[in-house]
């Protein structure tokens, strides 16, 4: 039979790549998570994770840091995105660009710069590890919040806001009943961009707290460098599960909002 060129064959290399370098490595993690150093099946790593107060503390601390970072970034970034998207303040795309530009500078370099400045004003990692880490995290993730929020705010239904004003809403009500519900998809995707990466961040907490603040990413790295691969794999697997759960939640949210839109467009 003669070989006939079909366009779908072009996907074959990518498909092989996906299987080899994305699916296979995850299988390795699963394998290591449930075996001991001799390769026998065991739940050691699971039991160890859930009984070690140290590791549970790390989990709690990472959740707290992630939550706080998400909330603070949203509180700072939400007004900025709103102001920038609002033509009344004749802000333009150049300022948005300025907010995004730090993302293009190597982030280890940026973290080092933050560390230097914090040390200069007396907030070094040795004396204020938590505060320094928090500042570094906010500084790093703020652009990731502003961009998705800005994109959603550009599409806000202006006539709905005006209608709310005409129908007698005060400013607060306009915000809570019209602007905020419309921007929920942006808020969710911004939170997604911050929450999980904060939990698994390694460099920022390591550099800014001089190794005193241990987040999930640091824990994985520590376990790996101490050649406790089985424990490290289980923690990674746990992280993977958290990511999957948060993905499902956010997907639920965005789907709801799109169906809402469809329903409202019917009317």
């Amino acid at each position, binding site marked *: 039979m003669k070989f006939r060129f079909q366009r779908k064959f072009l996907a074959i290399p990518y498909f092989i790549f996906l299987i080899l370098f994305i699916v296979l490595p995850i299988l390795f993690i699963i394998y290591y998570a449930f075996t001991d150093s001799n390769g026998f099946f065991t739940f050691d790593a699971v039991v160890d994770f859930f009984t070690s107060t140290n590791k549970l503390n790390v989990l709690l601390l990472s959740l707290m840091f992630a939550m706080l970072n998400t909330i603070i970034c949203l509180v700072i970034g939400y007004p900025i995105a709103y102001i920038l998207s609002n033509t009344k303040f004749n802000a333009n795309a150049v300022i948005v660009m300025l907010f995004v530009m730090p993302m293009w500078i190597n982030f280890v370099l940026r973290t080092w710069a933050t560390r230097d400045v914090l040390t200069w004003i007396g907030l070094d990692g040795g004396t204020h590890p938590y505060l320094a880490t928090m500042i570094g995290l906010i500084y790093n993730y703020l652009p990731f919040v502003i961009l998705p929020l800005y994109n959603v705010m550009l599409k806000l239904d202006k006539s709905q806001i005006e209608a709310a004003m005409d129908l007698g809403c005060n400013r607060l009500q306009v915000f809570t009943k019209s602007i905020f519900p419309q921007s929920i998809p942006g808020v969710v995707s911004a939170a997604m961009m911050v929450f999980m990466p904060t939990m698994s961040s390694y*460099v920022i907490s390591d550099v800014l707290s001089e190794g005193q603040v241990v987040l999930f990413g640091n824990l994985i790295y520590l376990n790996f460098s101490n050649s406790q691969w089985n424990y490290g794999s289980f923690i990674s697997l746990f992280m993977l599960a958290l990511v999957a759960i948060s993905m499902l939640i956010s997907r639920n949210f965005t789907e709801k909002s799109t169906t809402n839109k469809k329903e409202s467009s019917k009317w």
Partner: protein
Amino acid sequence: MVKKILAKSYVYLILILMYIPIFVLIVFSFTNSDSVGIWNGFSLELYSRLFRNEEIMIAVGNTIIIALISAICSTILGTLGAIGVFYSKRRTKALVENLNQIPVVNAEIVMALSLTFMFVFCGSYIFKDNIFSFWTILFGHMVLETPFVYLNVKPKLIQMDPSLYEAALDLGCSPRKAMYKVMLPQIAPGVLSGFMLALTLSLDDFIVTAFLSGPGLLSGAGKIQTISTFIQNSIKKKIVPPELRALTTIIFLVVVIATILVIFYQKRQNNRSSARFLTKEQIKIRNIKRLIIGGISLIILITVISLLIAFI
């Protein structure tokens, strides 16, 4: 009016706060003190020391080489993948899209760890040798970048006019030629933005390089260092060379120039639809403008590249 001023000052305040660390480094790159906060008078010593510091120059060279090669490879792979998947059956499409989503949402450190396990396994059971080298970094970076290239190309394929491709076939093009001449120009903006994104992801990466690094490339026998891993290592060793402040200035300048070019490019894209009916004069002026901008950017690019080459 008051509201407007308040809003604006808030935006600018946050903007200034965001740039303070970088600006402090830039200001203190023009003096020769060892740490930020001590001003020893104006000097360009750090800059000359930067270009004579072999370790930093090697790290910069490694970063650029890895970024370019991995971005090119993942752009080709991702673009071909996106085209192929676009014309596949629905089930294959759904499968690839879901697999493609894994590295996008997955924590980088988990991905790096899983790849490390696999490469260690391959090294000990298949190759019987330590396989950590430039190639493991390359594959690691490609895992990081290719899904994003795919996601950038996909919307352009959906927007594409399918009848153009068929028309090309009817008019006697071979499928391959139709692909080159008709399909590729239509998805080119997506491919370009995918490439740019891949480049930035690679330049920014720390964890994948730290996990998968081995001997090779410019560093010879030692582990390959990129800018990220070099800075992290020197912070760990508590001796951060002050020359890095000069490097920050240079990187910042490059980023600013790139941003300006991107803004110009976007403006031109926006103008293109409205600029179809121009008089000859206007076209002449536009061409001259383009020539000047292109020339200036070319000169800057060449100087940056030649500086790099000269000092590596």
